[in-house]
């Protein structure tokens, strides 16, 4: 306890520092006065007594300092003094301070903004209890419905009966929950509201989903296992952000009744704020519904795998043992359920396994999608910060040189070198902290922009742009490191100045040491800038290639409307009539040139694929199953896909007529390498159906799923023709409109027309085809825009740096220039002299930067779309931009040099 009391006394002293000094002063003065009086009484003269008393007392100043040192606070005193001094210095030169703080704010802000994204996406766990105990069954993000074996033998999607089996036979899980791998579109209307139903996102989850995550309701209650049985009253849970944004936190909503997809549900409660479910994504679920409430009853059969599984593991079990056990359970189950794996794949059952992955972040969808992009952005923003640091170091070095006479004077007067170094360091750390504070503002604004760019088209993003505690810590740490990094060299160099040198007034010089040390930062800036500029050129070119590629359809003048008739209660028998009414009414909307319906539209995030059986050929199970879509008449004309041979799907293709199919080029090449596909037959389901569809036409390849790779082999079936025995009824999901003029401007009349056909038909979204395609490039666009921004930033910083170095050297060499001009040098040669110095640095920077950029380009090449990393045009353009900017930055001070008046210059000192 003694040290604790001692600390208390020390702290007390710190608080009463002023009192302490006066007390000590008074005490010592009294001592000397009493001694003096004693001496006088002993017979000494007043003067002698005074000196004697002082002699006996010792060095008053030293003793006082020693007394104060005893308390151990002098480091703090020194620091405070340095800070006060530093602040005074910075205030003295507002121009320098502003430029430095702004430069740092941009550098630190850019990094903090990127770190906000990294923190939110890559580091933060789900906002649930003990997220580290969560484990997911599966290691990839395959979604939808899988039948048979799964990719690489790793089970990711599970059927409902398989889930029940694993849940009930794996006691190592405290809870094992299941949820549908895709969110579902919901059509929601509060009962009693007169307004039309609105589209929302819903997720079907098992009854123990919230118990497994260990979260409590914000209001009301969450789902419980009894809610997830077919006979239970229908209840749903609402997300807090939905409650807030759409229902104004109305408390009467809990326990009230909602129509969801036409079925009455009671809202049991609201999830806590910040909870976004099992997957970080834009537009997370607005509602959670029990699996038992899922309308697709057929999906609960053992052969359909559509559920993701996440469980909370007991703390006393080893995940590897559980993983082995799950694999055994899976294989046993597959062996005892012959309907799950088709005959020809049963040999693969021993290869099927469960990979148990630790899932503190839930399903890592964005983490996987954004990993490469974020790494790139971290590197780029790091480069920007380095450039900013170099810039500040440069500015500080110039100042150090300017301060040399003063520093020399202080050294001559006996100031310790390390104290001078500390003082300079304090100054740069102060600058960095100020820059960091300003950088937090930049980061906040930057994060918002980045989120909007990254999630273009999203209604709600579960990531806050506000800096979190780790982000704040990151910014402060980054500022401190930055301060030390750019402060050390100038501080050290400053303290090296020779007292004698400066006192002699040796400031006349042609070249001096400080400009030698100033050049490396400027050269590095040029080098990093050219790397960023070349990189920006590559990714921009890549994005532009992606966006302007030949997709196999035309985006201009097209509007896509997503609907889901099943949500409005349509059943298969009522669909033909609905299609008829849509096909009649839509083309009559003024401005619509043609209209069509389809199951799904290209690059809208949907895909369906199924194995095909070609008539007259043995089934080949190794082939990739081709994609397929169902389309109405005029579909290909409306989206602008060209017919190559045969005919398109049209009004002739009714339920009663011959079943037909249109295939794309890749389908033709894959399945009919040597014969004419037109007139051939194929089918789906099994070999017995191979005569179902007659191929009547071939269309050009179009990209429906992947924008980078080649188009998938695809076949198209008429909307009205159902495959025999096919259970996946062909719901229409998208309306395509080819319009004259701006597509978005037609939205009101389209909505009106659809409401006229059926007011209950919920419109999920209306957007131009171009926008739909564009959202596929959100990540590429984010990277391209940020790289351009960083490139621009780097260019500006490098130019400021060059300008600084050049104008500083002009100022230093005023004498020399004056002498040269007096001796007959003309303005041109002076201009050349100064510019040559600046350009030499640019050339040196390019010599370092271009090889670096080429290496970087090679590392980047997997991210680039039809852009070669060694791209002469891009490279020359970047060099040209940099050289031109550098020329301007050098020209301003160079012109100033030519205006030097020889007479003034010679007198200048």
């Amino acid at each position: 306890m003694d040290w604790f009391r001692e600390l208390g006394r020390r702290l007390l002293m710190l608080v009463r520092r002023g009192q302490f000094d006066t007390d000590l002063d008074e005490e010592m003065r009294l001592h000397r006065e009493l001694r003096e009086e004693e001496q006088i009484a002993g017979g000494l003269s007043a003067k002698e007594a005074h000196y004697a008393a002082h002699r006996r007392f010792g060095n008053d100043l030293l003793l006082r300092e020693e007394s104060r040192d005893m308390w151990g606070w002098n480091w703090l005193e020194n620091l405070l003094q340095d800070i006060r001094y530093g602040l005074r210095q910075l205030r003295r030169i507002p121009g320098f301070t502003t430029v430095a703080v702004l430069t740092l704010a941009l550098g630190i802000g850019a990094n903090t903004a990127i770190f906000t994204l990294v923190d939110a996406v890559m580091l933060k766990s789900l906002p649930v209890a003990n997220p580290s105990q969560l484990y997911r069954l599966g290691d990839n993000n395959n979604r939808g419905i899988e039948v048979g074996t799964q990719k690489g033998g790793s089970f990711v999607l599970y059927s409902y009966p398989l889930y029940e089996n694993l849940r009930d036979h794996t006691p190592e899980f405290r809870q094992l929950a299941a949820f549908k791998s895709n969110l579902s579109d919901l059509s929601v209307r509060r009962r009693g509201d007169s307004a039309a139903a609105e589209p929302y996102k819903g997720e079907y989850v098992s009854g123990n989903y919230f118990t497994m995550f260990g979260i409590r309701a914000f209001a009301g209650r969450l789902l419980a296992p009894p809610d997830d049985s077919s006979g239970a009253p229908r209840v749903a849970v609402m997300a807090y952000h939905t409650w807030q944004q759409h229902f104004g936190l109305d408390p009467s909503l809990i326990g009230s009744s909602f129509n969801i997809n036409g079925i009455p549900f009671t809202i049991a409660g609201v999830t806590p704020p910040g909870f976004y479910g099992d997957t970080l994504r834009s537009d997370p679920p607005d509602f959670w519904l029990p699996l038992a409430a899922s309308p697709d009853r057929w999906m609960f059969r053992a052969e359909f795998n559509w559920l993701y599984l996440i469980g909370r593991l007991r703390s006393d079990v080893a995940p590897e043992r559980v993983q082995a056990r799950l694999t055994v359970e899976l294989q046993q189950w597959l062996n005892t359920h012959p309907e799950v794996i088709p005959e020809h794949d049963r040999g693969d059952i021993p290869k099927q396994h469960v990979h148990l992955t630790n899932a503190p972040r839930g399903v890592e969808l964005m983490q996987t999608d954004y990993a490469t992009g974020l790494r790139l952005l971290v590197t780029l923003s790091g480069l920007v910060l380095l450039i900013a640091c170099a810039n500040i170091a440069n500015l500080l070095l110039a100042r150090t040189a300017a301060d040399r006479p003063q520093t020399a004077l202080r050294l001559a007067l006996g100031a310790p070198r390390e104290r001078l170094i500390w003082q300079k360091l304090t100054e740069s750390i102060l600058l960095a902290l100020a820059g960091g504070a300003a950088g937090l503002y930049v980061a906040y604004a930057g994060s918002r922009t980045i989120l909007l760019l990254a999630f273009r088209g999203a209604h709600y993003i579960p990531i806050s742009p506000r800096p979190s505690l780790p982000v704040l810590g990151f910014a402060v740490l980054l500022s401190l490191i930055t301060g030390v990094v750019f402060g050390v060299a100038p501080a050290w160099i400053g303290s090296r100045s020779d007292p004698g040198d400066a006192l002699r007034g040796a400031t006349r010089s042609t070249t001096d040491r400080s400009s030698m040390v100033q050049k490396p930062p400027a050269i590095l800036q040029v080098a990093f800038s050219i790397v960023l500029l070349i990189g920006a050129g590559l990714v921009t070119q890549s994005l532009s290639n992606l966006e302007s590629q030949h997709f196999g359809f035309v985006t201009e003048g097209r509007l896509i409307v997503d609907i889901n008739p099943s949500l409005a209660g349509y059943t298969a028998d009522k669909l033909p009539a609905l299609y008829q009414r849509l096909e009649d009414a839509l083309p009559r909307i003024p401005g619509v040139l043609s209209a069509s319906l389809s199951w799904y539209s290209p690059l809208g995030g949907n895909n369906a694929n199924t194995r095909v059986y070609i008539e007259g050929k043995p089934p080949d199970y190794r082939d990739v199953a081709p994609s397929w879509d169902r389309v109405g008449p005029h579909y290909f004309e409306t989206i602008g896909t060209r017919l190559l041979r045969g005919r398109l799907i049209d009004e002739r293709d009714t339920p009663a007529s011959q079943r037909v199919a249109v295939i794309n080029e890749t389908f033709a090449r894959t399945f009919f390498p040597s014969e004419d596909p037109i007139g051939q037959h194929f089918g789906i389901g099994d070999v017995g159906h191979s005569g179902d569809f007659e191929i009547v036409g071939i269309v050009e390849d179009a990209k429906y799923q992947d924008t980078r790779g080649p188009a998938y082999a695809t076949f198209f079936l008429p909307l009205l023709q159902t495959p025999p025995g096919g259970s996946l009824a062909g719901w229409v999901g998208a309306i395509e409109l080819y319009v004259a003029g701006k597509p978005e401007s037609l939205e009101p009349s389209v909505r009106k027309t659809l409401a006229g056909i059926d007011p209950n038909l919920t419109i999920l979204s209306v957007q131009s085809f171009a926008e739909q395609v564009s959202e596929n490039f959100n990540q590429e666009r984010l990277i391209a825009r940020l790289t351009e921004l960083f490139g621009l930033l780097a260019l500006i910083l490098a130019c400021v740096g060059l300008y600084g170095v050049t104008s500083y050297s002009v100022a230093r060499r005023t004498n020399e220039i004056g002498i040269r001009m007096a001796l007959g040098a003309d303005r041109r040669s002076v201009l050349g002299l100064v510019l040559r110095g600046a350009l030499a640095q640019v050339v040196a920077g390019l010599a370092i930067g271009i090889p670096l950029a080429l290496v970087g380009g090679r590392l980047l090449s997997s991210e680039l779309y039809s852009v070669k990393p060694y791209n002469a045009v891009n490279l020359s353009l970047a060099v040209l931009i940099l050289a031109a900017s550098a020329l301007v930055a050098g020209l301003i001070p160079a012109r100033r040099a030519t205006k030097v008046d020889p007479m003034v210059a010679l007198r200048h000192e």
Partner: protein
Amino acid sequence: MHQDEIPPGTLYLLILKALARHGELHGYEIANWIEHVSDEVLQVEEGSLYPALQRMLIRGWVKAKWGVTAGNRRARYYRLTPLGRKQLEVEVSQFERVVAAITRAIQTA
């Protein structure tokens, strides 16, 4: 008159002893007492009392309080704390051990 500097480390001991004898003293009185009791053989560089007193304040051996001298002047008076009293015993026995050892060393010669 010949004056010796006090051996290093014994300043604390002397201050503690002075306060133990007289209860409350200010700095000047402590310096005088040390000189006086040592028959003016021991003399401190008077100022060095003050850093030592600071150290003792930190350690909690002494307490300080402002008071008034006989000549009616403001002075800071130091007083032993219970901790200081214990420290005096420690310092005394330590000093005696050292002296005994040195004495033995000298005599065996």
